[in-house]
């Protein structure tokens, strides 16, 4: 018990320290106008730090309150992200009914099923049932104009901002292998979620930092001139090092310590994929960020794009690893 508390406190306290430092740096940069840094970069950084605090508070909550609270929080984030996605997507009046059901029934149902640990239901609710019923619902409205396009946009919005994101809180419900010592560690799941979110945010920050080194080679200049090969490789390598160094906080332990590093690499690559894909959507829609509707801060979707893309992959790989580890364990005494 004491050991596990040390780990949890170490993780929570360490990140708290990091955040405090980041906030202090942001404050100092904002005060000093002569720092020679671009004003826009400083503002972006300050907004980032603020959203990190929100995410941190949300996850720290998971340790002290019931996991259900975390799932409810993620539901609200999902709901808001879907609002942003659909708001920026041209829909037609015929989509009204379908959209109503998507928002009011489908989105809450996904998170209720996650809360009830119904993996077999929540893993197919949206990719099968919603996927098929959305086009049927739109067809029922009798408006065939740009049918496939409208259908695909609603499906994508639902998949990215609800289905994919719901796999982050679903980490709290994952079955993990028994600990060798045989005692229960009540914070293992919360730490796994914490580790995951921390690595998505760190890999984003690291990729950004590595993109600043001289010799910039953008991966796709037509979509995102700021995402460079240097950022991708440097960011992923340093995320793997950091993630590997945090192995003690994760369920990947003992002989599997390197799994924490590999998982961090996967998270970093998926974060990159998420940011890039969402940038492409924004480019197409001609907006700077999803929050242009809300003056003064970027949208929710801009903050969570990396989590959305990394969550289902991280969940799936962790689940594969856990099942394999459970199968390899000797039967319970």
């Amino acid at each position, binding site marked *: 018990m004491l050991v596990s508390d040390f780990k949890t406190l170490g993780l929570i306290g360490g990140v708290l320290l990091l955040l405090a430092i980041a906030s202090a740096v942001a404050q100092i940069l904002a005060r000093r106008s002569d720092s020679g840094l671009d004003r826009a970069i400083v503002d972006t950084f300050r907004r980032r730090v603020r959203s990190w605090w929100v995410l941190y508070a949300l996850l720290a909550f998971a340790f002290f309150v019931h996991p259900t609270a975390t799932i409810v929080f993620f539901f609200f984030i999902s709901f808001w992200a879907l*609002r*942003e996605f659909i*708001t920026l997507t041209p*829909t037609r009046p015929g989509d*009204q*009914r379908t959209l*109503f059901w998507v*928002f009011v029934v489908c989105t809450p149902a996904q998170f209720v099923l996650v809360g009830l640990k119904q993996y077999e239901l929540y893993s197919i609710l949206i990719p099968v049932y919603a996927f098929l019923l959305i086009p049927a619902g739109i067809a029922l409205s009798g408006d065939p104009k740009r049918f496939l396009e409208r259908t695909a946009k609603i499906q994508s919005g639902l998949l990215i901002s609800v289905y994919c994101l719901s796999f982050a809180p679903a980490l709290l419900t994952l079955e993990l292998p028994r600990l060798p010592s045989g005692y229960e560690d009540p914070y293992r799941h919360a730490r796994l979620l914490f580790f995951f979110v921390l690595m998505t945010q760190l890999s984003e920050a690291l990729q950004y930092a590595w993109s600043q080194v001289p010799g910039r080679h953008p991966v796709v200049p037509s979509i995102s001139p700021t995402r460079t090969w240097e950022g991708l490789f440097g960011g992923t390598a340093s995320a793997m090092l950091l993630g590997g160094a945090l192995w003690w906080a994760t369920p990947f332990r003992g002989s599997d310590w390197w799994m924490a590093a590999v998982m961090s690499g996967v998270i970093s690559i998926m974060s990159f994929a998420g940011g890039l894909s969402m940038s492409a959507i924004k480019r197409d829609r001609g907006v700077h960020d999803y929050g*242009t*509707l809300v003056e003064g801060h970027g949208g929710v979707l801009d903050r969570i794009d990396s989590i959305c893309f990394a969550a289902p992959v991280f969940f799936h790989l962790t689940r594969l690893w856990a099942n394999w580890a459970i199968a390899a364990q000797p039967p319970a005494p």
Partner: protein
Amino acid sequence: MATEALSSWGGDLASGLVRNSLALLARFISGASVRWLDSQPDTCQRVYFANHTSHLDAVVLWSALPPEVRVLTRPVAAKDYWTAGPIRRFLSGRVFNAILIDRTDIKVHRSPVDLMTREIGHQYSIIVFPEGGRSSGPDVQEFKSGLYYLCRRRPDLELIPVYIDNMNRILPRGEVLPVPLLTSITFGPPMWLEAGEPKHHFLARAREAVRRIQQLRGSS
């Protein structure tokens, strides 16, 4: 006497509470972002005139105002809709403090403009939708002449053009189920009726003011 005063005080408290929580709820449901474009919130007497696509327009616009302006601002609404049923009556009477216009009983000597000028006195501002009815698309329709007659009576009123974006997607005409998309409400710079300005000229200018905000939003 005392109980009457007490109950009226209690009623005021209740409607005040409902007013603020409803404003908060409307802000959350509409996800409204509010911006003032070359314009400032003020408690001076004003006429907020906006495009009209949904039943929720008045509530959303009203909730977008700062609380101290909100208590002095009364939406102008259709009597037949807002007196149907006790909930709507309570909302329009006690919460929004709406000025209700009887659409079936418009006569020369009982014109809505008379009613409006009487009701606002020298204190209240009003919210009007000069398109008349709700339009079904994002296009701003021609304005009805009521706005002009109101301003001729009270040329001192400040006119604030307002553009409400996306409400037609949240609750389009003829739908009952709202979709919780995000709206935005933009307040434009004040304008006045010029001395001797012809009616059609003024109405076109007012409509153009709303459309200009719409275009500015689209380009940003």
